[in-house]
């Protein structure tokens, strides 16, 4: 009997409820994780294939990413990008290597944790649960900084040199998402899915939200601005071109305790 990855995994439309993503060219990993966690698993043999399909997926409970993938791809190459897709989803790197350097690269590259083969049931569950708990604990205490603005996600407090204002939880999450994008374009489709998930939101409603956030940023900041790119999406950027050079220096930082 032929095991065909395309036929053994569920269709994307069926990924309702709890599900995991496994990016590994070893088919037994996906099957094992499916059995261990007792959830639907959507598997890819390369990270490039996952990235292609990512827009069609909603947030999984976890992503398991192997280091050595099909066609010579290295899971660590796209790790940082993958870890930013769904901030509440832990990315756990799977490795068959005992090399400390690879583990260091994985954690430094944005992985929440790592797991070595053999995949043991207790360890897979524990690593995933622990990572999810850690994210939940820190997400409410998150501080985001960009240019001269400072956003406290827990309280929705936005501060800058010109003053401070308070945002609704959704507006604060939206602004945090823009900050995490580090100056890159965020499409409206992505914003809707990230903030509202399956709930249908009109473009007008989203535009109103962006208007409110833009106004709040303008009131407190002299350096940051939210810019709409017609038909493409939104960016949070520095006003001055020279300041744009500093964008890479801006990072969303997490403070575990305040």
């Amino acid at each position: 009997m032929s095991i065909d990855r395309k036929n053994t995994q569920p269709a994307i439309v069926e990924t309702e409820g709890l599900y995991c993503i496994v990016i590994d060219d070893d088919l037994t990993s996906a099957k094992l994780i499916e059995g261990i966690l007792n959830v639907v698993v959507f598997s890819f043999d390369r990270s490039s294939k996952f990235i292609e399909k990512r827009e069609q997926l909603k947030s999984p409970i976890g992503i398991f990413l192997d280091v050595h993938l099909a066609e010579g791809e290295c899971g660590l190459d796209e790790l940082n990008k993958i870890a930013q897709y769904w901030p509440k989803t832990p990315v756990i790197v799977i490795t068959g290597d005992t090399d400390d350097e690879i583990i260091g690269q994985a954690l430094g590259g944005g992985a929440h944790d790592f797991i070595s083969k053999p995949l043991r049931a207790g360890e897979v569950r524990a690593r995933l649960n622990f990572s999810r708990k850690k994210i939940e604990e820190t997400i409410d205490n998150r501080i985001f900084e960009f240019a001269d603005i400072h956003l406290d996600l827990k309280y929705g407090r936005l501060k800058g040199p010109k003053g401070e204002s308070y945002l609704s939880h959704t507006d604060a999450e939206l602004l945090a998402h823009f900050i995490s994008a580090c100056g890159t374009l965020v499409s409206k489709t992505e914003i809707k899915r990230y903030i509202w998930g399956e709930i249908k939101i009109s473009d007008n409603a989203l535009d109103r939200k962006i208007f409110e956030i833009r106004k709040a940023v303008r009131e407190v900041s002299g350096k940051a601005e939210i810019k709409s790119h017609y038909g493409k999406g939104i960016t949070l950027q520095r006003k001055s071109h020279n300041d744009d050079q500093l964008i890479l220096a801006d990072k969303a930082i997490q403070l575990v305790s305040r």
Partner: protein
Amino acid sequence: MNHEDLLEKSIVEDLLRIEDHKKGFFAELIQIYEQQTIEGLKKIHSLVESKDYAIQAIAHKLKGSSFSMGLTRLAKLFQELESTNKSTKPENFVDLLDSAKITLDQSLNKLKTLIPQSTSRHNTLRNSIDLDIGT
């Protein structure tokens, strides 16, 4: 033949525990593993002459899956294959591959005896149906 180190008991027990809440899991897992490993061994065999780097990559994958299946002895053979390089003599590759094939057979036979009976019958039936379709 000493079967002591063919299987890592605690890992296989873990896998069988999953079967308790997911009937048919163990047999399906073995089937996926078996197909993947046979394909991998064939690929390695075809690459021996060229000593292509892909040999190490395939051996690495098979090592990981074999460890996860609790097949310790086989995993160690794949580990040896993974450590080969351009200077490895072709006869050493052949010896390692032969040992891997024999150990794979032994390991799978052993694993298959552990498939819960109801699942085993179901699987045998399904295989025979697939074979009928395939011919």
